[in-house]
């Protein structure tokens, strides 16, 4: 796990080493163990290293034995042991034990097709000196990030946007269409990012830069099957198959030369992963969790129960509303995009706890909701579709009361109002986005806070059409359930869950997350499952619960799903001064002209008054605040983190060194 960046000069000029050094210096949190660069003529690669595999031999950028290939790599290849053996049998000779070198040899053997053989989470770039081309690839599900841009004379890439800005030639300018998309989908539609002229490489995609031309292509995507697929297999057999796959996905994710811990949220997914991990590593397993003072969000009781049941050594951190407000500017510094929930903030604190306990690697349960039928939006769509088939029914809409049992605001509403909100128009039933229409319609109401100028500029954009054009040709043949899973897996997962809540929060504290549910073998297996086994009637993650039976406490196996949430807007009104006072002042709002000052003032007043707050109010507040912080840090300060908000550097590991030493200049160059 690391940070990477690079420059390719398009007119043959030499690479400015100082520019490359400035870029990689911004990624010290991703790789505090070493920062090194390689330059040759018109190409430069840089690497900030978090040492996890082959601590001595895995230094980067790394070259092939003949010096013709150079790689800078962020991530892990979990099946590198098997791939290495296969390559040795084909005559390849290895100088290190690292997974990095395996990629190089595999590229020599297979070229750009090498990624098909990788099981892992990666973003890497290979400079091929013979063919004079740059090859970049990003893992299938988008666990690791990769951004790129062009200047008048160069192509630049990096793990994070701040590294691109640091080159000195890239200006950060908020993309208003991106904001418009976030205020609908919660994410930008890739390759768009929050900033103009800065793109992201899509998950499951590769890129080649040759002769100044950029070409990208998709090498993988989840392919869902019609509902009848695999119905010949019995539920027992599929349960066994899932369990075996998950055991192996977990096993290879424990490959590390440093200790591996686990997140324990108290829910089904992370408890299951912890149980599988425990069976492989024994009593020494360390687990970590975050708890809340606010009982609405706290799952500490389940976390303690899971830890006691599995006999793990558990540590937790308590998160208050004031804590969320306190770390929020740092959170946005790392998310590099506006967000509508504060949920990343407690995860930022959790990663800090992990690092303070001397761990660099954690396994987590991410990915199960998207692939195993866990999200409430799937249940919501199932009920709405069931009702929509007989709209005059008085009984069917009563099922709406089964939705969101953890949300008091929903539960207290009479069915008549739920019917109004979740109404199914006849034309909606045919929409490819049926499952997501209520969420997107609700979120799009946040646009009422945009200034007239911004609304005028974005009114011509048709995001739904853009999204529809990106759908695979087979999408229409899938069941509505699978369509919903696809949308979550391809957009919300990489665009928010794995980035803003995942990679960015963990790497802010030099911690690497690993996700057994996102092993592509598991994802492909799940995509072929009949939806009725993922959600049996309204029982979410049905097959997964069966696979976990006996391995986790029954109370956790059968508890209703409580999605991970955190206190939102109210966090900034807990009596302590925080960033919101400055960032939402009339002065700041007027300066940037993104939002309507009067509306923002009314929203703030509503929070201050202590009146009831709706889901939309919370999303609006967090969305506006995060946008203003983003503007302050990346546009006005040109990528310089505010010193007044800075919370402190990454803590040093307590035992055995690995001190956090920001290194503005590389210690070794090639």
């Amino acid at each position, binding site marked *: 796990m690391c940070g990477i960046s690079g420059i390719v000069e398009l007119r043959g000029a030499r690479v400015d080493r100082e520019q490359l050094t400035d870029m990689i210096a911004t990624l010290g949190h991703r790789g505090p163990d070493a920062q090194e660069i390689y330059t040759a003529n018109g190409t430069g690669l840089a690497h900030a290293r978090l040492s996890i595999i082959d601590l001595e031999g895995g230094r980067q950028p790394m070259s092939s034995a003949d010096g013709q290939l150079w790689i800078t790599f962020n991530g892990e290849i979990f099946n590198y042991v098997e791939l290495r053996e296969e390559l040795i049998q084909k005559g390849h000779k290895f100088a290190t034990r690292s997974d990095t070198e395996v990629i190089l040899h595999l590229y020599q053997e297979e070229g750009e097709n090498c990624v098909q053989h990788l099981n892992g989470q990666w973003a890497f770039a290979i400079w091929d000196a013979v063919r004079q081309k740059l090859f970049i690839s990003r893992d299938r599900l988008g666990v690791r990030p990769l951004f790129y841009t062009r200047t008048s004379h160069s192509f630049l890439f990096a793990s994070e946007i701040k590294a691109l800005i640091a080159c000195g030639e890239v200006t950060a300018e908020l993309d208003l269409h991106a904001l418009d998309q976030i205020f609908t989908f919660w994410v930008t539609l890739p390759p768009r990012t929050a900033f103009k002229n800065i793109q992201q490489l899509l998950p499951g995609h590769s890129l080649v830069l040759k002769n100044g031309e950029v070409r990208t292509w998709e090498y993988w995507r989840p392919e869902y099957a019609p509902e009848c697929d695999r119905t010949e297999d019995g539920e027992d057999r599929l349960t066994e198959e899932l369990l075996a796959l998950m055991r192996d996905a977990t096993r290879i994710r424990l490959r590390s030369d440093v200790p591996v811990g686990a997140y324990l949220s108290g829910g089904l997914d992370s408890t299951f992963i912890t149980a599988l991990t425990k069976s492989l590593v024994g009593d020494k397993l360390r687990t970590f969790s975050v708890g809340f003072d606010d009982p609405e969000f706290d799952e500490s009781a389940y976390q303690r129960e899971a830890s006691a049941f599995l006999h793990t050594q558990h540590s937790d951190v308590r998160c208050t509303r004031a804590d969320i407000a306190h770390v929020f500017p740092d959170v946005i510094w790392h998310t590099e995009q506006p967000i509508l929930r504060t949920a990343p903030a407690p995860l930022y604190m959790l990663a800090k706890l992990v690092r303070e306990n001397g761990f660099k690697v954690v396994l987590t349960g991410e990915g199960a909701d998207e692939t195993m039928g866990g999200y409430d939006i799937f249940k919501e769509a199932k009920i709405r579709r069931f009702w929509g088939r007989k709209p005059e029914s008085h009984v069917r809409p009563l099922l709406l009361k089964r939705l969101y049992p953890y949300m008091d*605001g*929903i539960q*207290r*509403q*009479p069915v*008549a*109002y*739920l019917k*109004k*909100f979740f109404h199914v128009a006849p034309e909606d039933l045919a929409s490819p986005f049926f499952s997501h229409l209520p969420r997107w*319609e*609700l979120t799009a*109401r946040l646009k*009422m*806070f945009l200034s007239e100028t911004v609304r005028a500029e974005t009114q011509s954009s048709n995001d739904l059409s853009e999204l529809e054009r990106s759908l695979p040709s087979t999408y229409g043949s899938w069941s509505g359930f699978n369509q919903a899973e696809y949308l979550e897996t391809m957009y919300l997962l990489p665009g928010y869950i794995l980035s803003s809540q995942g990679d960015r929060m963990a790497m802010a504290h030099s911690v690497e997350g690993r996700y057994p549910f996102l092993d592509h073998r598991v994802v492909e297996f799940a995509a072929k499952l009949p939806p009725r086994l993922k959600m049996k009637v309204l029982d979410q993650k049905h097959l997964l619960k069966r696979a976990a039976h006996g391995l986790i406490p029954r109370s956790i196996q059968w508890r209703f799903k409580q999605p991970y949430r955190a206190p939102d807007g109210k966090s900034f009104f807990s009596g302590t001064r925080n960033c919101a006072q400055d960032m939402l002042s009339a002065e700041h709002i007027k300066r940037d002209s993104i939002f*309507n000052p*009067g*509306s*923002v*003032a*009314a*929203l703030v007043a*509503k929070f201050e008054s202590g*009146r*009831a707050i*709706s*889901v*939309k109010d919370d999303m609006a507040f967090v969305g506006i605040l995060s946008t203003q912080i983003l503007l302050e840090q990346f546009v006005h300060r040109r990528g310089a983190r505010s010193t007044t908000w800075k919370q402190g550097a990454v803590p040093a590991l307590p035992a055995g060194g690995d001190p956090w030493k920001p290194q503005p200049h590389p210690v070794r160059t090639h």
Partner: protein
Amino acid sequence: MFTEKSVGQHVREFIVENFLFNQERTFTDDDSFLGEGIVDSTGVLQLVTFLEETYGITVEDEDLTPENMDSVNSVAAFLSRKMNSVAGSVPLDQKTVPGGQL
């Protein structure tokens, strides 16, 4: 003295302040709060809290229907019926509300 019009005006002000955040948006007194996207899914509960705290009434579960709560006029009419049926409640014209005396 209490009139439906004055209550309607007060409800309208509450809607504009709390759900439209003081933006100038035209909507008629018969427009559906939910249908027009003026009030979101949990907004009706905020409206109920406002009515109970401002007018000293109790909104029963069976009162919570779109017929009673989904437009300025329907809320005003509901409130009028409610007030006329509640014996002993403080007359509306003696209540102080954020917008001043009704």
